């Protein structure tokens, strides 16, 4: 058995500071707590933060407002813990030769075409969406053709 240990094993966790009070006039204070001394600025919006308001996410110091808006807009990747891969769903549905799957695939490729794909894909390729769109249109056209020929509309 091999073990690779790192200093975090024995280092004590950082004690969360509740923030020091503003002592002298002219000292910068926290944006959210006017009576507390600012210790750092938010890396996103630049607001001054006291020890209590400072949230460390990775190597960034962020305020609660930015975290909330980042999560709402889905712009902070580290807060994202699940992603549906619409491009793969659409591709599989477009290949399965059923009329309804083609329509569903076309809906997915249209509705979610700008959605991010897998987080791990380094190349920002959207080829699956394009291929799924082509196959779904083809599938729908073939479906329409089969329905028309079955009902005899094409014969007339």
């Amino acid at each position, binding site marked *: *058995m091999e073990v690779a240990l790192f200093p975090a094993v*024995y280092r004590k966790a950082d004690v969360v500071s509740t923030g020091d009070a503003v002592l002298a006039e002219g000292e910068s204070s926290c944006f959210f707590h006017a009576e507390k001394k600012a210790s750092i600025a938010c890396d996103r919006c630049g607001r001054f933060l006291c020890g209590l308001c400072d949230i460390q996410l990775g190597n960034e110091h962020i305020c609660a407002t930015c975290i909330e808006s980042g999560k709402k807009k889905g*712009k*902070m990747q580290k807060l*994202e813990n699940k992603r549906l891969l619409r491009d793969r769903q659409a591709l599989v549905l477009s290949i399965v030769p059923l009329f309804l799957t083609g329509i569903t695939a076309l809906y997915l490729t249209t509705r979610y075409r700008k959605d*991010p794909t897998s987080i791990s894909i380094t190349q*920002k390729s959207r080829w699956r969406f394009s291929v799924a769109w082509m196959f779904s249109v083809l599938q729908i056209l073939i479906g329409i053709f089969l329905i028309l020929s079955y009902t005899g509309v094409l014969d007339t």
Partner: protein
Amino acid sequence: MEEKEQPNYRKLGGGGRYSDAPELVLFFLFFVFNIFVLLFYKRRTLYLGPDHLLVVEGSSYSETYKFYNFRDIHSFTLRRTYDYIGWMITLALAVAVLLWLAITPGDDVANIVFGSLAGIVGAVLLVHLLRGRTVHCELKTAVSSVYLPSLGRLGHAQKVLSQIRQLIEEEQGAFDPDDFERANSPAPGPEPAVVPAQVENEAVDATPIETPKEE
């Protein structure tokens, strides 16, 4: 939807397929469920980000993410498993049986089929032997522990860990065994408080509070 900030991730290790059931059990289940035995497998892949490791779990249609910042990683453990020997014996037996069937006099077509199968299984055995010993790799933080199936071979896991170790040490500094020893040794507690003799006497001599009697 706006495009998210997407750091470049580099895949570390293999595909990372794993199952909660032992592999040999799955091997025998293959003869029952055939290709559908793949449904018993999950995927967990390790990626290297700028300041963290990313563990991606999921199926083909959805993914769940776990981020491990370099500064929060406590340790990696590599434990050798018996899967290597188990697979080696199983595959070698399969090759031996197929070869025996291939050289048994009889139908020529059957001999060719069994010979080809022996060749394929033999090639799988060779690849298995060349990839090296199997290991069970785990990443530990203060609050969690995650199994990394993508680092399932000793040589490859050691190579990847040496890369990660460098990055983590840049963030955390080098591991110092003395500090570790100090942190784990019991801290000297505060000295027991000495009760002054006078106070002790007072406590002994203290008269109980009398309750006023009703007249």
